């Protein structure tokens, strides 16, 4: 944060600090790993480390002598994964994931074309504004995927994710974004096989 707390801005500084404190609260605590959870976490490492090993092999053209450096690299990566606060593990459903990837590719192209046309149109049709969306997706990876996907969808940009509330900046406030967001949400729920209880839209 690059705000400048001059003496005159004491009030502003106080507000900054409280915002930070409030923001720090919900983040998961970073502490020593409990013994019972350790085995579970190590098991959770298998898939990411296998994926990273695949990346290493692709980068080095499957050369065996490269593993002299590949093993330390994997050790560093595994250490980083262990050091980070660990979220809940999710099982991905393969067919919905593939469908989502295809649908999302089309949507991302549509989003880019949309914003490009707005940029070059002489009248520049913009009616920017913020909207709030209460997501029914569970915490963790599904919400992160939702926020990042929203950014690449036509006309929407995620600006805040706090608990269930997702604040979205839209290029055209006159359009109906609720249907697109609901569609996106149910597609993401299908990927993570997460139940989606009745959702409501916040003001």
């Amino acid at each position, binding site marked *: 944060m690059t705000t400048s707390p001059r003496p005159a801005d004491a009030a502003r500084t106080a507000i900054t600090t409280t915002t930070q404190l409030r923001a720090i609260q919900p983040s998961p605590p970073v502490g020593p790993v409990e013994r019972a959870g350790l085995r579970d976490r190590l098991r959770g490492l298998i898939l990411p480390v296998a994926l990273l090993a695949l990346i290493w092999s692709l980068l080095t053209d499957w050369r065996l002598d490269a593993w002299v450096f590949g093993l330390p690299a994997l050790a560093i990566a595994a250490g980083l994964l262990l050091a980070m606060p660990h979220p809940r593990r999710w099982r991905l459903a393969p067919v919905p994931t593939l469908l989502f990837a295809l649908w999302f590719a089309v949507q991302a192209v549509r989003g*880019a074309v*949309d914003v*490009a046309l*707005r940029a070059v149109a002489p009248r520049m049709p913009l009616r*920017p504004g913020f909207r709030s969306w209460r997501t029914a997706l569970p915490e963790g990876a599904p919400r992160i995927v939702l926020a990042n996907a929203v*950014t690449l969808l036509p006309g929407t*940009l995620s600006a805040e994710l706090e608990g269930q509330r997702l604040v979205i900046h839209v*290029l055209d406030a006159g359009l109906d974004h609720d249907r697109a967001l609901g569609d996106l949400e149910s597609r993401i729920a299908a990927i993570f096989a997460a139940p989606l209880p009745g959702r409501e839209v916040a003001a």
Partner: protein
Amino acid sequence: MISMVAMVLIGAGALFFLAGTIGLLRFPDLHCQLHALTKADGLGLTLIGLGAALLAGSVGDIARIALICAFAALSGATCGHLIARHARRGDAEGRDV
């Protein structure tokens, strides 16, 4: 033939970069500019990556290009979110005072 397709893809990617830059210059506020940067430039890079992958000689090169595009898209979305979040919070604080 393949090189023709690759050239078309790279040219289209460059056009999206151009449109993104025009958006960056013309759009009225920071949030709208972020729309232009995250979406148009992201697709521009992906198209250029596709074109380069068609011209690439080996599987390793294609994998490298795919990795670059995937991480660029991910970091584009994340950076867009972080900047929008920071700017929005700054605005909110300004209004409170």
